[in-house]
């Protein structure tokens, strides 16, 4: 919002003075208080009088206490009755937070500069000190040193009309003590303007034009020089902190050997809007960055090639850019940098037959863009130049930044035509807008057009980011591989356009929308909705911040976001604690291992393994296998023992359960067969040459098959033989097979024999049975001896058996 006010008070409506060369100061402690100086008389006639002269001893300043909306004249500046100007060059400043008002003015009595102060804007000023020179230009601030507030006052001027000098007052509110600091180490002559810029750190920049020659001559060229002091201008020596890399001398020359007329013709030049031009100069430092400095200077040999040059330094004045802006046919530059780092550049330019006062503002330091405000566009010949002063509009204007806002003052024709003020204007003095006529105090008498000071204020409309997101930014439960979108509303609750330059997330789990082209713009009071996506990349609680970078002065803004990515949870269930029970070798038992997902998200199983080969996991053609939340998957596990005994193993299931692979113990038993022998192996006496049989049953009384691998006599004997031996054989549980043992009673001396039964009964892998029999030799055998069996066997004498067959006598192969 731009406000422009003609500051001539209502009861000064009769005035027809050339109120030019204005300067301004806003009280930093109270921005509602503003003061302005100009060449304003203590009588309305001013330069329009038959003999322009002061009526009394006090020249006025303009004062506002409502932020520039209304103005009054306060007659407080020392002058003298009869002087043809109220003051010559004059500038004023509020001290800083002290509220003290300082002024520097050339006494009408010559080149004496009076440096004055007063406790406020309505009290007549008292002179602190005087110096001799030209164009006093003040800057001031309040520094707090050791808890004590001190006004620091800097009076830049052309001492003795020769040397650019800064008089430093380190405690201006209480002491007139000052140190004069000549700035030019190269040449003995400088042009009138000496400008300073103060940074709150105590760094003071100063700029001036140095005559590029030991002796003034009409063809003199100029150097534009910047110096710096790091200690409030109180260093000894002061302003020595910038050294030019070209010649190694104090003061960086940002432009050398330039043409710049010393106020060209020193009169109101028709080819330059009826004004003069010359050593235009302004300098400003960023309040937030002491290294960032801007300067404007002028070059030219005539009105046709005169131009202003805006440049900057990012390294505290050591090096400087080329032109950021080049303004032809212009004068009265002023620059200021606000608390947001925005650079304001004001100037007055001849455009056709008009003077145009322009305010340009850039939020990127004029690197690539700026906005432009035309404050006024008025004819260069209305009013007709009074030719009292050497200037038409004056040799300077002033732009100042307080906080975010820009304040300024310029002088221009007061011809009351709305079209002259495209940004609008308010007049306090009496005006008939319909007839475009100024009216006197009585509101009736027409008043001639003249030059008036105009106050302006550019209120930087600052956007303010406000955000809204549901549930305090908590996205709830989102499973891995899935996502949830939530709307983030960005509202601009401020007064300026919000420009969003970047939206970022501090967490990979929270995604911000892709923006094809920044900035995003949100008007005052408007909102935009953006979708923020929670797409977790891992399990567990996730949090992050969504950061919004914008031109809100408090940028960036952070919004906390969070969400939960629940993990699947594997639970395993198996009957009987994983005990498969008994299973015979060669057989198998299957039991189900239940994989249950007791979590909120899908369980992904990547592997099922067994630590023992007798517990067999199912074959899975393709992993992974998934189990939905709350679902179960029965997985068959097979117990297939390959040997007898207790068996155990660990079944391990690998999944995306964050707790890691889960294991369950399984066990089983593979019982063996059990050998039992039934029947007697005692034959007793057997008549000689008879054979007797005995049958034994070899049984399996175990739970699993019994492998009888061999039944045989331990030693060979022609008296013993197995006439029926089905072994080796496998006996099912509970089954038996007979073995028939034959005794051939031909022993002269009985000897026991051992029947060996070999099996896989682990408890009795070898069972030995004694088989007992003896030959009963009767009188026949005794009679016949070895021929007994041939003589006797035909007789039915085998009571326990049967006669042995003769051919059997030859069979001495015994099965074992």
């Amino acid at each position: 919002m731009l406000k422009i006010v003609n500051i001539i008070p209502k009861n000064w409506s009769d005035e027809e003075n050339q109120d030019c060369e204005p300067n301004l100061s806003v009280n930093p402690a109270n921005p509602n208080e503003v003061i302005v100086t100009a060449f304003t008389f203590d009588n309305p006639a001013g330069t329009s009088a038959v003999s322009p002269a002061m009526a009394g001893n006090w020249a006025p300043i303009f004062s506002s206490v409502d932020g520039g909306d209304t103005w009054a004249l306060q007659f407080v500046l020392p002058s003298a009755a009869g002087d043809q100007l109220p003051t010559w060059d004059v500038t004023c400043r509020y001290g800083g937070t002290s509220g003290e008002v300082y002024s520097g003015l050339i006494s009408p009595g010559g080149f004496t500069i009076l440096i004055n102060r007063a406790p406020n804007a309505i009290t007549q000023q008292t002179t602190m000190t005087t110096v001799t020179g030209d164009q006093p230009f003040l800057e001031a601030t309040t520094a707090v040193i050791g808890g004590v507030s001190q006004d620091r006052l800097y009076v830049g001027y052309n001492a003795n009309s020769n040397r650019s000098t800064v008089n430093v007052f380190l405690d201006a509110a209480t002491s007139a003590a000052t140190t004069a600091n000549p700035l030019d180490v190269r040449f003995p002559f400088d042009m009138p303007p000496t400008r300073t810029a103060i940074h709150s750190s105590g760094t003071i920049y100063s700029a001036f034009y140095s005559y590029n020659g030991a002796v003034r001559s009409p063809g003199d060229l100029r150097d534009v020089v910047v110096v710096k002091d790091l200690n409030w201008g109180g260093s000894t020596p002061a302003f020595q902190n910038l050294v030019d890399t070209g010649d190694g001398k104090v003061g960086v020359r940002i432009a050398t050997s330039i043409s710049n007329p010393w106020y060209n013709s020193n009169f109101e030049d028709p080819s330059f809007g009826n004004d003069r031009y010359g050593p235009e100069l302004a300098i400003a430092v960023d309040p937030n960055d002491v290294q960032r400095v801007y300067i404007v200077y002028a070059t030219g040999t005539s009105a046709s090639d005169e131009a202003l040059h805006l440049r900057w330094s990012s390294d505290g004045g050591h090096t400087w850019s080329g032109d950021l802006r080049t303004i032809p046919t212009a004068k009265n530059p002023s620059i200021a940098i606000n608390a947001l780092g925005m650079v304001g550049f004001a100037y007055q330019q001849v455009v056709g037959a008009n003077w145009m006062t322009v305010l340009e503002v850039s939020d990127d330091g004029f690197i690539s863009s700026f906005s432009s405000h035309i404050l006024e566009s008025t004819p260069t010949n209305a009013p007709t130049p009074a030719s009292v002063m050497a200037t038409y509009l004056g040799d300077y204007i002033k732009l100042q930044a307080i906080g975010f806002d820009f304040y300024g003052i310029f002088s221009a024709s007061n011809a009351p035509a709305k079209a002259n003020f495209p940004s609008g204007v308010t007049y306090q003095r009496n005006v008939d807008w319909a007839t475009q006529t100024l009216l006197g105090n009585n509101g009736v008498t027409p008043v001639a057009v003249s030059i008036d000071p105009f106050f302006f204020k550019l209120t930087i409309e600052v956007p303010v980011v406000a955000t809204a997101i549901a549930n305090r930014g908590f996205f709830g439960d989102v499973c891995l591989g899935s996502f949830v979108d939530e709307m983030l509303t960005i509202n601009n609750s401020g007064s300026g356009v919000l420009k969003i330059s970047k939206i970022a997330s501090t967490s990979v789990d929270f995604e911000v929308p892709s923006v094809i082209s920044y900035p995003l713009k949100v008007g005052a009071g408007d909102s935009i909705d953006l979708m923020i996506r929670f797409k977790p990349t891992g399990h567990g609680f996730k949090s992050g911040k969504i950061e919004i970078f914008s031109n809100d002065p408090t940028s960036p803004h952070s919004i906390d976001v969070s969400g939960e990515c629940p993990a699947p949870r594997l639970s395993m269930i198996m009957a009987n604690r994983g005990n498969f029970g008994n299973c015979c070798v060669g057989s198998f038992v299957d039991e189900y291992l239940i994989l249950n997902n007791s979590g909120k998200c899908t369980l992904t199983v990547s592997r099922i393994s067994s630590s023992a080969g007798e517990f067999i996991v199912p074959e899975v053609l393709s992993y992974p296998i998934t189990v939905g939340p709350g679902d179960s998957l029965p997985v068959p596990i097979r117990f297939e023992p390959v040997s007898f005994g207790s068996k155990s193993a660990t079944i391990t299931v690998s999944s995306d359960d964050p707790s890691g692979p889960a294991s369950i113990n399984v066990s089983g038993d593979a019982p063996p067969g059990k050998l039992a022998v039934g029947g007697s192996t005692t034959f007793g006496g057997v008549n000689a040459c008879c054979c007797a049989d005995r049958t034994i049953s070899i049984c399996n009384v175990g739970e699993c098959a019994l492998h009888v691998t061999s039944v045989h006599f331990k030693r060979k004997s022609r008296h013993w033989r197995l006439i029926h031996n089905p072994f080796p054989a496998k006996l099912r549980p509970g089954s038996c097979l007979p073995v028939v043992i034959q005794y051939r009673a031909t022993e002269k001396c009985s000897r026991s024999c051992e029947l060996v039964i070999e099996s896989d009964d682990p408890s009795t892998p070898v069972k030995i049975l004694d088989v007992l029999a003896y030959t009963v030799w009767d009188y026949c055998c005794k009679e016949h001896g070895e021929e007994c069996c041939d003589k006797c066997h035909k007789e039915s004498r085998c009571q326990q058996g049967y006669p042995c067959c003769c051919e059997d006598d030859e069979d001495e192969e015994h099965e074992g």
Partner: protein
Amino acid sequence: MPSLDELVTIAEAAAFIFSGSITRTGTSTLSAVPVDANTVVVSVDEVIKVPAGLRNFAGSEVTVQLRHPLPAGHYVFFAEPMAVGEGIAVRELAHLEGRERADAVAAVERAYAARMAPRLQAAVLVALGTEGEIRPLLPPAERRGQVPWALARFEIERVLKGNGRLRHVTLVGPVPASKRLPRAPALRAGLHAILILQRPPEEAIEHIPEDERKGALFIAETVDIQPSERFEALAQIIATENE
């Protein structure tokens, strides 16, 4: 009550001399002025002296910051400007009772005479006329560090003092006003006024073409330019001085 001599001094210093009645006490016609018991609002009924260009002061209300409290009544105020905003505020230098208005008028006239008499006495020529076109004596490049001298022809209508047969003279003076000669008003083309003229300073004569040097004259002070309506008053002062 001050003596007439004192009054003359006060009248010379006062930019405002007017008569009026105190209508309100402890108040102001403009917010820019702090108010105390000595702040009064006066209804102006007659103007004796006001700053040049201020019209219609009579009949208006003005805030007066008194030196001392005054009871309601009619007074003649001598004042200097204090503040101007939505109203006008002045600071009292002195006051007279309203019935002593004639003394105030006399003081103003005597102050004027006292101010002008020495000027007139020192003048070489006092005449009513009109300044003509300005001719700068120095090119722009040479004006640096010097008074920007210029010439203008002064067409004479009536002579108050000096050679009555003169019809024009050459004026030399700065154009524009110069800090190097702060008291000397700038020459202005078209100015119709009574000029009280002196011999130019040597510094100026050096720059005047030789054929114009002899008769060149110079305006030394702003007071040496008087509006045409002052002709009779100046004539009277000259006559009085001659007596």
